[in-house]
């Protein structure tokens, strides 16, 4: 069989844990995705439309553009860390949902 199916006659159980999992996970995904897309696209938008700002020196010869770009890396790591922490809740709810 190339098409896998759950055993028919045993529809997945809908319980409170599953409802919470779907709601929390969707909310988390939407908020995080919009946040990082907005913060990320600030970089090419500023690079395209506000070149003087990007070239402004902040520390010594380090420009705002470099500070912003390095901050994007920090943002990526922080958001991944937040996800790892939140995922523990999701994993627990997923286990409960399957009971």
């Amino acid at each position, binding site marked *: 069989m190339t098409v896998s199916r*759950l055993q028919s006659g045993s529809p*997945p159980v809908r319980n409170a844990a599953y409802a919470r999992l779907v709601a929390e996970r969707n909310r988390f995904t939407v908020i995080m995705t919009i946040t990082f897309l907005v913060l990320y696209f600030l970089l090419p938008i500023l690079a395209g*439309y506000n070149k003087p700002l990007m070239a402004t020196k902040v520390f010594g010869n380090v420009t705002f553009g470099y500070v912003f770009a*390095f901050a994007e890396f920090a943002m990526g790591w922080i958001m*991944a860390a937040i996800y790892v922490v939140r*995922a523990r809740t999701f994993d627990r709810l997923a286990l409960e*949902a399957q009971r």
Partner: protein
Amino acid sequence: MTFLLAAVIVAITLGITFWASRRNTSASDFYVAGGRISAGQNGIAIAGDYMSAASFLGITGLIALNGYDGFMYSVGWFIAYLTVLFIVAEPLRNLGKYTLADMLVYRLKDQRVRTYAAISTIVVSAFYMIAQVVGAGSLISLLTGGALTPSLAIPLVGVLMIIYVVVGGMLATTWVQIIKAVLLMFATIVMTVLILSRFGWSFSNLLGQVEARNGAEFLGAGVRYKNPIDLISLSLALVLGTAGLPHILVRFYTVPTAQDARKSVVWAMVLIGAFYVMTAFMGNAANVLVGREAIARENAAGNMAAPLLAQALFGGAGTVGGEFGLAFVTAVAFATILAVVAGLTIAASTSFTHDIYKGVIRGGQATEQEEFRVARLATVGVGVVAILLGLAAQTQNVAFLVALAFAIAASSNLPVILFTLFWRKFNATGAIWGIVGGILTCLALIAVSPNIMGIDPPERTTGRKPIQAAPLFPLENPGIVSIPAGFAFAALGTLIGARRREGDDQTFDEMQFRAYTGAGVEGTVAAHD
């Protein structure tokens, strides 16, 4: 010395390949290493798949020649992993088995989708692969002072990668990837430490030297990208395309669980992030220590910046240290290309064998031995095609081929993945329209873009644009138009194909339950085998 080091790396990786071949006894072993790779190993392998020659050689060169604009590539390529982590990694692992098509067919229950998903996988892999093979050809040719021409070097790389994949399958490919990622990180860290020691451990000092040599505009944006829309379009393709790249997606099936898929992406993000941060040091240092003129003299696109930087850092041209540095970094770059091409080859041949041969041609009825044999034959076929296309495209700009692969992945695979996971009414017609519409829009826009069309001055004889006319589409990367078009085609197809069938809602609910909880994954996998 370069040859010696490259030969040592090739010998070690071939040794691993033959070791892996003894543990490689089923189709599942071949495609996804039997799903037994650990999350940490897989994370390093994902990082390895991603830190391609385009990243290591390409970005270092772009920063060295264009300053800040080059570094923006690094940021986009890194941030793309958040899309993968948040949206695709876990559900894909929960729903799929070997390929993207497995996941789509699980939800949509239509074998036609399998064919189109496989075609999309093969098209994206092909564009990515041609770029790597062409890059390998020019790298080897430059290093041997032209003794090995690209026409000889391209088949050499192709044959090596066929051996890795045919003999060792996914297990060997994964280990080759891990070794290469460790070597590449090691080389990058050593170079970064040497750079910092030269510039008083201060990034500010380094940038000060860059400014003194090239002027202040080198520290700001806009040296390379004059049109802001072009930059935004490219950023869109990079950030959304990664989540649709077949050789990254196939890596989620090599780990046992969705949790492991998530952990691998986090591991990959740590490594890839560290690596891309260091490209800012390497590119700027190459600009100061080697110089734009010297870099452009070796290769106009800047591809030799990293090896030349290593030569300068280890003592300069003509010294033993300098030659060793050059040889080591070049050998690492060579291993990088081999490993990435092997990863792409396995994604393409898995999709061909599992989806098109077994799923469509044989109606899912192939025996294990037959499938395994066809998978190996398909690899040889994919490899030969890659060599031929690479030879045909050897004068093309490789960065454009890579960015094109990202744009196609973002326009065809991503809309279909997202709609499959989250849109209750999505159907097979929508999936087919999305894949075909996304790919065709992308290819059509590229065909009339400045990559293909343009008026070259008559004295220019090599690398002329294939169509000598003003471009009809102004952007180099079509992402900003083709990605929304892919979503629109998928939505339109869904509406056109909408026939309420009994059980559609139940199918969606079952799929969602499994995507969110991972329920029944082991059971279904067992039923498959």
